[in-house]
């Protein structure tokens, strides 16, 4: 992640588990990281960020579980972590409600819990770190309205997996900020977060709606897929593409913006590094952490893509 952190210190920060678990710098700690679905590049990067950051904390050993996009499996993963008596749980939940109970169970066993990206309900966790998808959607809409289509126009939307919260929030935020701007979403199709689905949907969209001028995709892989479809139709230069994630990896959105395939992307910070920092505070430094850490997004255009990429990779 590379966003600036706005720490919301107002939240309830009473962490009953912290003192019990904190054995200071002399301790050894096993951290369980329950990932919703590493098949998504964004989440793989989250794991990688955690792995990289944890390498800097010699006291930490991190174990990773992958729920493969299945709530029930993720519940089992957390159960198994509890059986292993981990010292701290990091979880990026597949969905909020179904994971709430098991997260609470861990929390009630005095295991500190850091929730990343998507939330769980209630406040039975130690801290949440993530970004605001509605806000990201809003910024994407603002960029389209102000930069790409100041005079209005028609656009297409390629959405994330139906039923997932980011898909809904990125759609809602976007609509919010283009309201009254004479911009019309003429077609909206599900791309399930996948590059090839983005390509396939865009193929048809370009045929049925040749008058659109922007494709807004809920993540970068789908935006890249749409770009490929447009290129095949010879329309790559007349159309503009925008995505979300901005992963600082070779196949990620930063590179795509740098190469000019996408006009813009919005950073969706993984919170991996921040999670390890928080874990260190709790376990090694015996400090408290804020209940909520909202990571800021950042608009990436050709102007800043190269620099952000370099910075994210320690350049």
């Amino acid at each position, binding site marked *: 992640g590379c966003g600036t952190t706005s720490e919301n210190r107002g939240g309830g920060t009473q962490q009953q588990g912290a003192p019990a678990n904190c054995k200071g710098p002399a301790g050894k700690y*096993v951290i369980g990281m329950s990932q919703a679905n*590493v098949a998504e590049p964004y989440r793989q990067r989250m794991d990688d960020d955690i792995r990289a950051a944890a390498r800097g904390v010699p006291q930490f050993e991190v*174990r*990773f*579980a*992958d729920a*493969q*996009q*299945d*709530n*029930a*499996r993720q*519940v*089992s*993963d957390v*159960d*198994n*972590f509890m*059986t*292993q*008596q981990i010292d701290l749980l990091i979880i990026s939940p597949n*969905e*909020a*409600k*179904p994971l*709430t*109970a098991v997260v609470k169970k861990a929390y009630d066993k005095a295991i500190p819990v850091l929730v990343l990206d998507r939330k769980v*309900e209630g406040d039975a966790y130690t801290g949440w770190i993530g970004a605001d998808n509605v806000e990201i959607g809003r910024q994407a809409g603002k960029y389209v309205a102000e930069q790409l289509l100041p005079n209005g126009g028609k656009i297409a939307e390629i959405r994330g*997996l*139906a*039923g*997932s919260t980011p898909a*809904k929030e990125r759609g809602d935020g976007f609509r919010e900020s283009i309201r009254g701007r004479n911009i019309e979403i003429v077609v909206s199709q599900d791309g399930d977060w996948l590059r090839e689905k983005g390509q396939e949907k865009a193929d048809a969209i370009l045929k049925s709606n040749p008058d659109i001028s922007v494709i807004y995709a809920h993540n970068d892989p789908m935006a890249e897929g749409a770009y490929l479809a447009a290129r095949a139709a010879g329309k790559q230069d007349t159309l503009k593409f925008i995505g979300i994630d901005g992963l600082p990896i070779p196949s990620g959105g930063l590179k795509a913006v740098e190469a000019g395939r996408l006009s813009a992307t919005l950073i969706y910070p993984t919170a991996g590094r921040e999670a390890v920092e928080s874990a260190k505070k709790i376990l090694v430094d015996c400090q408290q952490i804020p209940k909520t850490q909202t990571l800021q997004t950042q608009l990436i255009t050709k102007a800043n893509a190269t620099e952000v990429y370099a910075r994210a990779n320690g350049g």
Partner: protein
Amino acid sequence: MTKQMQETTDFVAVRRPSVLSMVFQFQSLFGLVAVFVAAIVFSPSRNGDLVFLSSGNLFNVVRAVSEIGIIAVGMTFVILIGGIDLSVGALLGLAAVGSAVLLVENDFGLVPAVSIVLLVGLVFGLLQGVASAVFKIQAFIVTLAGLQIARGLARIWSGGQGVAIAYGDGPGEAPMTFSLLGERTFNGLVPIPALIFIVIAVAAILFLRGTAFSRHVYAIGGNEKAARLSGVPVTRVKIIVFGICGLLTALAGIIHAGQLNQGSPNDGIGYELDAIAAVVIGGTSLAGGRGSVLGTVAGALLLGVLNNILSLNGVNNDIQLLIKGFVIVVVAGLQQLRPAA
């Protein structure tokens, strides 16, 4: 997948059920035992106790496989008649969504809501049975279509988003009883879904041994024409079998909703392969006519134990995939080691 007929003609030639044949009849349990033993050997230990063998952990395993297990029981019937049901994952999603919507949004009582959902599953299964048995469309296609239809219905019924279940007596709240599905009994030890799974499995094992209907199921899978010529009501039995699978899947969907306190249209994606895998690893032939629910239960538990021990050891996810693949082949290969044909 060779044809049934050929396979069985060079089958074990035993005059009467000898001890050896008894052992091999339950060969599907071999794999489970082997994996179980391996799990004990590789179990991390704490304070001298094996973590894997702690009762809490074992019940976790059973709980984790209970939904797939219940579906796999229904799938066993379908596969025994030589069919297959790809719709179960989506139907589970539909049932989970249905439970949540009926309980929370429509404020139905527990019994009406559960009954309606079970009925939906039953009818869905029966309809697939009709398409396959009466219109003679390959079960694979029928249920592939069923998968899409069930998923579409689940999306529409839920409005596309997961429907959260809150408990209480007020409007928009589900009765507390429903939350039991996520609970454990006997001193917080035994998860209710595990109990339900065990009950269903035992009932199905008895049913498949002791009823005339079960002979008809095996006969249809073994030689459909012979079954028909013997007066077995082939069409009816097939339809009922798909109905049973739909019904059990709906039950699993209800449990899913209860365990996760939500019904989401994306629930159950990919469960069909897991359920079929449990059945097939349990020794049931995809060609129909041979297999058992006991095997299926063993298959489901085997997969559960495997997942569990790999997690307990914190094995890297990528390596886990490799290990699982190899173990599955080896276990299946061991099952072939029956007295040579």
